[in-house]
C-alpha cells in the first residue's frame, strides 16, 4: 500500500503558511548547528598544527630565523597592527575590486557565449588563451604598462579569477531544462523574460560554485601583482620580510593573506544561501535523508 501514500502523505509533509515561518526560524537554527558541526573538525586540525608548531619551535628543533614561535608571530601582528591593517586593506581592496570585475565580465561573457554562436566562436578561444598564459609571466608586462599603482594588481586578479566564472556561468546557463524553454516559447515569452525568470536563476547554483573558486583566485592575483612591483600590500610586505629574514612578519603576513581568502569565501557562501535558499534547502534535505538511511 505504500504506493498509495504519494498524495496522502503530502499534506503532513508540507506545512501550511503559518508553520512555514516557524520552520524558517528552525532552518536558521539548523544552519547554525550545521555551521558548528562543519567548523569543529577543521578547528581541531588547526589546533593540532598550532601545537606541533609551538612544540617544534619551543624545543628549538628548527632555527628561529626559519620558523618563528607562534608567540612571536602574534606579537608582530599586535605591535605592527596599524601597518599590517593598512597593507591588508590594500590587498583586500585589490582582491574585492578584481573579483567584482571578474564576476561582471565573466557573467557577461557567459551570457554572450550562450546566446550567440558568433560570440562563442570568437570569445571562447580568446578566453582559453588568456587562461593558458601563465599569469605570473604577464605581471611584469602589466607593471610596465600600468605602473606600480593598484590597477595592474586588479587586472591580474581579474585575469586569474574570471575563467571559473565564465566556465560555470556557461555550464549553468546551458543546463536549462529544454522543456522549460519549449514551454516558454508556447507562452510567447520574450528572450529577456526567459533569461530573467528561467535561465539565470537556474544557472545560479553552478555560477555560485564558480564564484567561490574565483574569489580565492583573486587573492592570488592581487598578491602576485604585488610581488612584481608594488610599494604597498601584503605581497609587498612579504617580500620585505623575506629580504630581512624577518620570519615572524613573514608568517604574520601569510596568516593575513589566508584570512582574506577565507573571509571572502564565507561571504560568498552566505550570499549563496540568501540568493538560492531553494538550492541550499534541497541539499540539506538530501544530506538529512543520507544521514537517516
Amino acid at each position, binding site marked *: 500500500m505504500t*504506493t498509495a501514500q*504519494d498524495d496522502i502523505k503530502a499534506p503532513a509533509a508540507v506545512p501550511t503558511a503559518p508553520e512555514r515561518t516557524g520552520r524558517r526560524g528552525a532552518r536558521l537554527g539548523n544552519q547554525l548547528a550545521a555551521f558548528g558541526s562543519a567548523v569543529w573538525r577543521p578547528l581541531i586540525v588547526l589546533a593540532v598544527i598550532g601545537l606541533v608548531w609551538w612544540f617544534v619551535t619551543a624545543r628549538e628543533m628548527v632555527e628561529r630565523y626559519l620558523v618563528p614561535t607562534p608567540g612571536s608571530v602574534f606579537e608582530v601582528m599586535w605591535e605592527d597592527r596599524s601597518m599590517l591593517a593598512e597593507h591588508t586593506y590594500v590587498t583586500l581592496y585589490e582582491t574585492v575590486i578584481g573579483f567584482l570585475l571578474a564576476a561582471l565580465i565573466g557573467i557577461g561573457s557567459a551570457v554572450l557565449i550562450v546566446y550567440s554562436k558568433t560570440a562563442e566562436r570568437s570569445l571562447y578561444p580568446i578566453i582559453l588563451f588568456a587562461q593558458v598564459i601563465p599569469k605570473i609571466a604577464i605581471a611584469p608586462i602589466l607593471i610596465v604598462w600600468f605602473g606600480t599603482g593598484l590597477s595592474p594588481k586588479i587586472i591580474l586578479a581579474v585575469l586569474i579569477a574570471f575563467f571559473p566564472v565564465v566556465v560555470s556561468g556557461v555550464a549553468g546557463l546551458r543546463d536549462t531544462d529544454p522543456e522549460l524553454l*519549449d*514551454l516558454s*516559447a*508556447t*507562452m510567447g515569452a520574450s528572450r529577456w523574460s526567459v533569461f530573467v*525568470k*528561467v535561465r539565470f536563476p537556474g544557472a545560479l547554483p553552478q555560477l555560485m560554485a564558480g564564484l567561490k573558486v574565483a574569489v580565492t583566485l583573486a587573492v592570488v592575483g592581487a598578491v602576485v601583482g604585488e610581488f612584481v612591483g608594488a610599494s604597498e600590500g601584503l605581497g609587498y610586505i612579504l617580500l620585505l620580510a623575506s629580504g630581512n629574514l624577518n620570519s615572524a612578519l613573514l608568517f604574520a603576513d601569510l596568516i593575513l593573506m589566508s584570512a582574506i581568502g577565507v573571509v571572502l569565501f564565507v561571504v560568498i557562501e552566505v550570499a549563496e544561501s540568501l540568493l538560492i535558499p531553494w538550492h541550499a534547502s534541497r541539499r540539506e534535505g538530501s544530506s538529512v535523508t543520507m544521514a537517516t538511511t
Partner: protein
Amino acid sequence: MPQLEKKKAAATDAAATASIDIRDVTCTFTTKRSRTTAVDGVSMRIEPGEFVSILGPSGCGKSTLLKMIAGLVLPTTGQVGLLGRQVKGPQRNIGFAFQRAALLQWRGARKNILLQAEMRGMDKRTAARRADELIELTGLAGFEDALPHELSGGMQQRVALCRALLHEPPVLLLDEPFGALDALTREHLNVELNRIWRETGTTIVLVTHSISEAIYLGTRVEVMSARPGRIIETMPVDLPRERDYGKVMSAPEFETLAAHIRTLLSGSH
C-alpha cells in the same frame, strides 16, 4: 471579385474549422551522423471539445507529433493547422504539460502556475483569481507556497497542469503527464482530468503509454506504429463524457477495446 473569393474562402474555413488539422505530415530529423524519420505520413483531424489519446511504442514520434502541433518542431513535409491557422512557429493558443513537471525549483506552487501569466503579460488580478480557482479545482489548496522539492510527484504534476490551464487555452497538449506516477495517484488525476475536460470544454490531445488511461479519458484512441510513426488505427471510444472510473474499467466495451489495442501494439514491435 478577389474580395468575394476571400470571403468565400473564409466562410468555408469557418465551417470546417477543426481544432487541430494535421495533413499528411512527415518529420525527419537530420543530424551529422544519421537521419531519423520520426513521423511518417500522419493525418489527423480533431474537432473542438474532443479528447484524443495517442498510444504507441516508445520512440515512435508521439512527442514529435505534439511538438509539431505546438509549432515547436516544424514538419518536414505536410501541414499542421491549429484553430484554423497554419502552424509556422511556436503557438500561444495552447497549454502544454510534459512527463516531468518542469517546474521552476525556486518558486512555490502558486508562483509556478503564475509563470504562465507573467510570460503572457496577462492581467494580474484575472490571473490571480484564475490561479486560485485552479488550485481549488486540483486540490492544491494549502500547498500554494510549497517549493517543488517539497511536493510529491502527483502534486508537482498538478501544478504543471494548472500552469498549462491558467490562460484557458482552447487546446491542451499532454505528453505522458502521468507517466512517472504510481497507479493510484494516476487514477486520481485521470478522474480529475476527465472532470476538467468536461467543465472547460478544452480540446485535449494526450500521449500515454497506458491503454486504460487512453480509453478512460479519450473520445477517440489513435494507435501509432513503431518508428517511423504512422497511425495504424483510429478507434472511437463509445462511452459518455462523464465517466466513472470503476464502471469504465469493468465495462465490456472497455475490455474488447483494450484487448484489441494490446494486439495492435504487440504486433507493431
